[in-house]
């Protein structure tokens, strides 16, 4: 066997001022050329492991480390991040905070220049990395003019330019839309195969990266609780940690089928081979839109909408129109997801709903207060203590009772989001609750909690309007889906119809079952499969 590119022996690490270790007695080996996914809930130690691999732990963050962790033959306790940079490339979540130069060309060349490479070698390294990642046409563009996906590719190219033995990536797709996220993962797989670079990737959306992985490590409380290939991992997850199982694996588990599939294609092939692929069926009758459920009364006044857009245009003074005569009506208590590619106008629509923007034409009518939680909940948190943000009742509602003295910046992503949500709700139920991409970087446990909280708000009469790329969350939460394209509504209907009628805006279960029966979630799919099994 080749020497491990990462070797840990009883490695334990505790952050400065923390009362318990973030990594506990970690012992593992990562082989050269392998593709390993690190899974686990928020706060499980995934990021700390990756930061240890690149030397930021303990050198940058301080704290106490014991045991041994070697990367490319260098001990992270002796070698700092700059020494380890020669053997380990690193990509973080947020592209904006990790790009330091002005153009991709200078950005990619920076780490090579830091190594003292001659100009010719720097130029060659830049060209090769850019060609490998398909960003050669972008080399002289300004970084701020690139999309998030393009910026993340530049960050990846910068990490790869020095041809490191190991590449560590901490949720690199969490800030990207699904298309850019999928592209990035497949790019990683290709580079892993062609360049032989070992990949260590932390991700929440396992269905996105398991098909590319050789191995899955699961961390809990800083310790490895599972270490296996994707298929055995899914079997283990279906039994032991259902929140980590992919939708397709959960579908199989709920239908009593074994073993769980790793990819959508495998799931479909196995169902087809077993004659279990359900025929095309009508969407479930219990999933109706406001149009269907709503007002059909004759001669009676239609009740007031919670929110109504009437021919709303948003035209930039020196740019294109973001919204183009948009009409949309949302009823009280309705749960609606707004979907569409980046730039379709989702965030602009929510800003209009809250009144942060004024339509250039048309009008927005509100049935009462509109609460808006934008993409980054940290933007809302401006005090030094959590209890200064919302007070004790808000903390209880956010599930943060007893943590009032915590600095909001030290809370996890999910905790910050719950706190910010309570902050905009301010203890009352508004007429409309709008959330913009609320599940980015959240594990499934947090997503389930968020869906439950939003469900309670809808039950109390608030219309819930969520802009998201997360089809699984949309299927779990909503009864109606609105697809935006070019600033206007291109599809509006029951979520079971809209999310089964296409390929991109579709859940994994709908892809496996080919949209049959309008089934979107594993539970709905399992009901269909059980019916097929009985027949």
């Amino acid at each position: 066997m080749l020497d491990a590119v990462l070797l840990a022996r009883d490695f334990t690490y505790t952050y400065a001022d923390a009362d318990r270790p973030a990594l506990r007695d970690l012992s593992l080996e990562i082989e050269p050329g392998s593709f390993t996914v690190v899974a686990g809930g928020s706060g499980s130690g995934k990021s700390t492991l990756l930061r240890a691999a690149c030397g930021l732990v303990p050198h940058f963050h301080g704290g106490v480390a014991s045991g041994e962790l070697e990367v490319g033959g260098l001990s992270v306790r002796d070698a700092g991040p700059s020494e380890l940079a020669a053997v380990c490339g690193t990509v973080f979540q947020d592209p904006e905070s990790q790009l330091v130069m002005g153009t991709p060309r200078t950005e990619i060349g920076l780490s090579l220049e830091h190594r003292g490479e001659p100009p010719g070698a720097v130029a060659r390294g830049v060209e090769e990395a850019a060609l490998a990642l398909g960003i050669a046409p972008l080399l002289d563009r300004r970084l701020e003019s690139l999309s998030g996906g393009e910026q993340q590719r530049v960050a990846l190219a910068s990490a790869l330019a020095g041809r490191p033995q190991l590449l560590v990536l901490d949720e690199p797709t969490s800030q990207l839309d699904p298309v850019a996220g999928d592209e990035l993962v497949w790019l990683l797989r290709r580079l892993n195969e062609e360049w032989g670079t070992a990949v260590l990737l932390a991700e929440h959306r396992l269905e996105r990266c398991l098909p590319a992985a050789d191995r899955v490590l699961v961390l809990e409380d800083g310790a490895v609780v599972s270490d296996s290939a994707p298929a055995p991992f899914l079997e283990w997850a279906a039994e032991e940690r259902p929140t980590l199982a992919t939708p397709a694996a959960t579908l199989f588990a709920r239908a009593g089928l074994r073993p769980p599939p790793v990819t959508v294609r495998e799931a479909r092939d196995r169902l087809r081979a077993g004659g279990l692929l359900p025929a095309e069926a009508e969407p479930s009758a219990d999933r109706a839109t406001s149009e269907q459920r709503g007002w059909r009364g004759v001669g009676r006044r239609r009740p007031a909408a919670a929110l109504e857009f009437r021919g709303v245009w948003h035209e930039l003074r020196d740019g294109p129109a973001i919204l183009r005569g948009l009409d949309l009506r949302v009823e009280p208590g309705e749960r609606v997801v707004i979907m569409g590619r980046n730039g379709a106008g989702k965030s602009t629509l929510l800003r209009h709903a809250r009144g942060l923007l004024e339509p250039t034409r048309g009008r927005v009518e509100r049935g009462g207060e509109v609460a808006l939680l934008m993409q980054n909940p940290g933007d809302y948190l401006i005090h030094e203590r959590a209890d200064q943000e919302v007070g004790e009742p808000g903390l209880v509602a956010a599930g943060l009772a007893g943590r009032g003295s915590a600095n909001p910046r030290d809370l996890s992503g999910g905790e910050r989001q719950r706190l910010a949500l309570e902050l905009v709700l301010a203890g009352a139920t508004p007429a409309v609750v709008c959330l913009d991409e609320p599940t980015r970087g959240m594990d499934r446990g947090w997503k389930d909690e968020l869906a439950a909280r939003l469900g309670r708000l809808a039950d109390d009469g608030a219309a819930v309007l969520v802009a998201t790329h997360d089809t699984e969350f949309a299927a779990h939460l909503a009864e109606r889906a609105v697809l935006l394209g070019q600033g206007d509504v291109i599809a509006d209907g029951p979520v079971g119809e809209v999310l089964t009628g296409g390929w991109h805006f579709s859940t994994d279960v709908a892809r496996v079952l080919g949209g049959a029966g309008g089934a979107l979630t594993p539970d709905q799919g399992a009901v269909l499969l059980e019916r097929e099994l009985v027949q």
Partner: protein
Amino acid sequence: MSLVPTYRRRPTPLHAARAGIGICYCAAFLAVGVLYSNPLVLGGALAGLVLAATCAGASAELRSGARLALPVAVLLVVINALVYREGNTVIFRGGEVLGRRLDVTLESLAGGGVAALRVLVVAGAFALYTAAVDPDAVLGLLRRVSYRSALTGSLTTRLIPVLQRDAERMIEAARCRPRPPRRGRVVLAVLARSLDRATDVAAALEVRGYARARPGRGRRRPWSRHDTRLAATALAVVVTAVAGKVTGAGAFVAYPSLAVAHGPRELGLAILVVAAGALPFAGARARLGVAGA
């Protein structure tokens, strides 16, 4: 539009020129602003800057720079008018305030106006530099002298728009709170966010080998026709300005009576500086080999 001028790549000779030449070109206007107090020459320098910024597609950035400098310029005029009592031509008698006569003279107003004009020229030169000279190329230029300082400068240029976007988002988020917080609290939060960003950037630099950065060697690049034209223009302006200064051209005396030299030498220098704003861009419609942003 950005509050602070920031670099944006454009297909113009100034953007296409090497950083050192771009710096020299902007510095030529700066030199005129520093060397001369003559309003005719300073006016020419300002007009030259406006022309250069227009030709380089950086008018908006120049306006941003002017907006930042204007309060200082106005303050200079007001303070000069109120503090200096020299000058023979009283244009306003304000009586006695705190035992001191508050007379405003034409000369003190003109003296302040010239100082303000100099501030505008200096700010304009910096705005043009920020908008048209690639900070990455400057970093490459300066890395042999002081790499870390150069990188700090480059980072500042890169992060200003990021921090500005952070601030805009946080202000918007504050508007979404049921009880909007005090502005001071939001400003503090924005500052705290910028520190978080700084920490993230520091971590990113660490994993890119910053701590072991070694002085690099720049790549040799042949001079382009844009380099030549801009360098020649900058040289002509600086040589003429220094020669004029040495020979006593461009005199300006504010007190006790205004005396502004406005002979052929001053006029010539002013025309040269105005022309310097346009000459390097003339006939540059040929392909520049610059990617549009």
